[in-house]
């Protein structure tokens, strides 16, 4: 099985031509973490890689912290990524970015929306929600390559804040050597038809946001 899979050369320019990639997509229930990870998983499948994805549904999802593990490679075993083995953390929410830092290795990449969603523990006045500046400085101490992408704001400018997830996938795409066509096919398979155009635009916005930053 794995032999013919190896024939597909997917070079991950961002990560020194690794042949396997571990993505952790995190956020808050309702933000579209699962749709984003579905698109990621489909993209891997279209690249003819082995793909596994894992997430938890049910009680933990109601207003809670949501995470989805997506793994690409010639042959993937565990559907869960181990601590220190996440190559890319895609985070849709400021606090959730902090929660998963312990999953990273020193060369990991973070693509994160600084958008805050206040949990009940904060609104009830028991806990303090971290400030944007503090979060950025903590994250900068952990890994070198951090891309703060205001996905929610950019999606709002497109008319629908819910497309923030695809803005971040677009931003991620700027860091991987995966043809746009693959991402478009993946979105077509997973995004409901009536939202497809919006999601294509969100993807482009996220991609050019990172590309422009890189070239500046």
């Amino acid at each position, binding site marked *: 099985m794995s032999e013919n899979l190896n024939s597909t050369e997917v070079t991950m320019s961002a990560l020194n031509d690794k042949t396997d990639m571990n993505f952790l997509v995190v956020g808050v229930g309702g933000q579209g973490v699962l749709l984003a990870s579905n698109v990621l998983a489909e993209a891997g499948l279209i690249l003819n890689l*082995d793909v596994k994805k894992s*997430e938890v*549904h049910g009680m*933990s999802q109601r207003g809670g912290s949501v995470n989805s593990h997506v793994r690409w490679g010639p042959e993937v075993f565990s*559907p869960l990524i181990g601590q*220190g083995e996440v190559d890319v953390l895609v985070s849709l929410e400021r606090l959730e970015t902090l929660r998963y830092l312990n999953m990273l290795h*020193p060369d990991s990449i973070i693509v994160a929306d600084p958008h805050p969603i206040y949990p009940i523990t904060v609104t009830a006045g028991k*806990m303090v929600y971290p400030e944007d500046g503090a979060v950025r400085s903590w994250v900068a*101490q*952990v890994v070198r390559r951090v891309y703060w992408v205001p996905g929610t704001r950019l999606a709002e400018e497109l008319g629908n804040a819910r497309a923030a997830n695809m803005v971040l996938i677009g931003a991620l795409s700027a860091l991987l050597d995966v043809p746009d066509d693959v991402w478009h096919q993946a979105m077509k398979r997973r995004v409901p038809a009536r939202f497809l155009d919006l999601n294509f635009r969100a993807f482009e916005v996220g991609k050019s946001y990172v590309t422009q930053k890189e070239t500046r």
Partner: protein
Amino acid sequence: MAVDRVQTRGPNTSPREETSAQERETWVLLSGNEAIARGAWEAGVVFASGYPGTPSTEILETFARFPGIYAEWAPNEKVALDAAIGAAYAGRRALATMKHVGLNVAADAFFYASMTGLEAGLVIAVADDPGMHSSQNEQDTRNYAKFARVPCLDPADSQDARDMVMVGLDLSERFDTPVIVRSTTRISHGFSRVRVGMREERPPRVRRFPRNPAKYVMVPANARKRHPVVEERIRRIAEYAETFPLNRVEMRDESLGIITSGIAYQYAREIFPHASILKLGMVWPLPRDLIADFSRRVKRLIVLEELDPFIEEHVHMMGIPVEGKSIFPQIGEFNPHVVREAAINAGLIPETARPPRVSLPDLPELPGRPPVLCPGCPHRGVFWAIKKLHLPVNGDIGCYTLGVVPPLNTIHTTGCMGAGIGVAHGAAKAGSPEKHVAVIGDSTFFHTGIPALINVAYNRSPVIVVIMDNRVTAMTGDQPNPGTGVTLMGEKTQEVDIEALVRAIGIKHVTTVDAYDEKKVEQVLKEYKRLDEPAVLIARHPCALLPEERKKYVPLKVNPDLCDGCGVCLQTGCPALVRSKAIHIPSGRQKVEIDPLLCTGCELCAQVCPQHAITFRAQVLNE
């Protein structure tokens, strides 16, 4: 009708989309649950019944979309399994689905099905929940297989899940036994590539329903004759297991041999890439010769299995030296980190196998995101009213179990489906000095609440039973239940009249109120508190997440001139209410504002605000 639905729903799982999928590629990405449904459909299952329960729910939801089948949600798992057994007695391949604790409810049916056998294949898909993501315990279903002398298959990914349902149905017919396909959360909700095929239609295996009392009527005289048949059957299956193709030896380095199954196989491959592995597809009965042979070929033998030391104990009993739970935890869910650290501690792999970790800065304690009742949840106001009674509250399983968390803090016991009413009754009859309140959802009431309420009515305990009727089985994703009026396959049907049912079993005090009307709920409960007889309050309002309800959302507003920041509204625990930047000068308190993206306009906060600072829907609409 099923054919129509296929054309509108579900990526990669419906036969209509599959034709084009096969043109594009050989593989589809399926969750374990989708793969179980797919396998059942391909293998010609015509009947499926189950009760929703995380992580098993999507099996039946997916199966219901295929053409040429019948699928239903039953009121509980026992009813579902009895029905699937009936289909298999009638010579039609059948599937029953449930979560691990559902098999407790269905256990009676499970045991007689083992005694009688069936005319056609029966697979019971049971999903365990190691780590208790959404469950009250982490019981290990493999024990039930041994207990009832039934074979158990343990898939390691979605391909296995599809294949094992198909193989399981063949085994069921070949050996005249029900078969368990046991999944776990990571299999059910994990996605991996699956090679799929097309459905094989199968004619019924009997021309008419069997008249065979010696096999199907389990009176003692017949049961005594069946028991040796069952023991002989499991012995023959154990023999067959020696050559069962899904029990697989993978020889690599012989210094370490690992016996494993299910999701643990993936962690074995991940953490011990050079070890030899015996992957058991069938975890009961176990292949003794295969295990003994494998143990002789390796220097050190370990068992890697989540939850109970099930395989390990049997290897021990064979007199073979083996390690398992002395290395790996018996509690909680495995992941690569847990398995790797345990292996390093036991000296199975070197410290250098640990991946380079980041060094974390000194972070403050991060605010948690505990699960909460959604904005607009009709349960919230009912708990607000119940809390004011200051009585012990016996809860049940469903979204409303979240009445236990701050700031509502209203529930004092929760054990299993349908337990609350019985616990309240027993406490009251035994002389508990306060009046007891039992809280139960509509779906849980239909599941196992009704017999408990009959006990309350017939044996006269003065408990207050609150049926929180949100018209659907909400916690698992708003599945229809017998109160909804629609079936799993989308057909309209007769809904159960809860109030008439409660009256019919002999309860005189029954009131139905709109759960959004906090004042009315409170008033009825205060009346009931004075009664010395059983009383039932049906607090009814549809789940706020239902599509029809979403159309009615009207976000409310706080009048900043009136709000004094007292925070009473925040005590409802609604996520749509937040402190604003504005300060109420005399008190120095932060005022409250409403997040318009979250607020549905249920008006609970408007009803409880002492300053009348929050607008009602009518006011917002008038503006």
